[in-house]
């Protein structure tokens, strides 16, 4: 009985990770990103936010790539507030579930 319960729990955990994925990836188009030093404010603001795992930058393209833990979800309004507090302007956001 114990073995069956454990196997069932493992199956449900595996199934949930397939359905929910490993988290989200947000691609933010940010205006005003001219220098790496100034971009640190975005890294700091985002990494202080619960659920954010990684923050990466493509300064030439004005992009900030954010990955989150599986339970974390952000709206565009929430991202816009964080970017504004860092001193920049959010122009757009796309999101996708990580495989």
């Amino acid at each position, binding site marked *: 009985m114990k073995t069956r319960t454990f196997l069932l729990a493992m199956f449900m955990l595996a199934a949930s990770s397939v359905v929910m994925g490993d988290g989200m990836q947000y691609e933010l188009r940010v205006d005003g990103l*001219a220098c790496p*030093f100034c971009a640190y404010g975005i890294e700091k603001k985002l990494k202080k936010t619960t659920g954010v795992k990684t923050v990466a930058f493509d300064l030439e393209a004005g992009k900030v790539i954010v990955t989150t833990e599986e339970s974390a979800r952000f709206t565009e309004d929430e991202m816009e507030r964080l970017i504004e507090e860092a001193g920049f302007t959010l122009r757009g956001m796309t999101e996708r579930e990580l495989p």
Partner: protein
Amino acid sequence: MERVVQRKRQWKRRWCWAGVLLWPGLPALAHDPVFGLGPHTLFKGAVEVHVGVDRSAAGARDQRVATLELAYGVTANWTLRAELPYLARDGAGDGLSDFALATKYRFWRRDGLGVQESASVLLRLKTDSAGRAQGTDTTDVLGGIAYGYESRKWYRWAALRYLSRGETGAGLERGDRLLADLVLGIRFRQTAYLEPDWVWMVELNGERTGRDELDGRRLPDSGGTRWFVSPGLMWTWRNFAVKTGMQIPLAEDLDGTQPETDYRARLELEWHF
């Protein structure tokens, strides 16, 4: 009568030192100019630790000032700053100089892809905490306005500042000072986020100082105009910045007999948390 003349000479000597060498050390955020004023403010909740060393020479006079500054980003557009300088002069001892508080507010910002333009106003209050020995013996107020254009390659800044200087305990009214700055900067190689980043700058700094007054009379050996050309460099890596530059006199039109400036140099280290 002789004593009065002697006293005036002493004051002249003392304020030549202060006037020539104690130019307003200013809250200069990284990616602001080294000597001029820029519009940068900290991100909301940011703490900045800033250590600066200034050295200046005029004739036989040599002065060094080390300053510890702490700043806090109240919002992304509003920064508060406290400055504590330590002053050392040849033959005049050393010690803590006047404590200062400053605030900068960014009232305009326009962002584009890889570009940020902004404008800020600054207010700085230098207290009389150190008195005559290591300070200026005055409470001074500085107001300024700055515009900045920052892109992946080019930087441009322009600023105007007005320094209103107070009256010393002995009744000397120091002349006010108007400062103007034009700065051009370039990043030769566009670096990625975690790469060390270099920006080279050249500044044109102008200063017009009014005459000092004592007992209602204008002192002849005070006031005048100075222009400097100032090459500088900003090196940053993630949240750490080093800035350095040197002011080289271009032209000086000083009233009466005053020592001309040889150079002024500055080195700044800055951390953002």
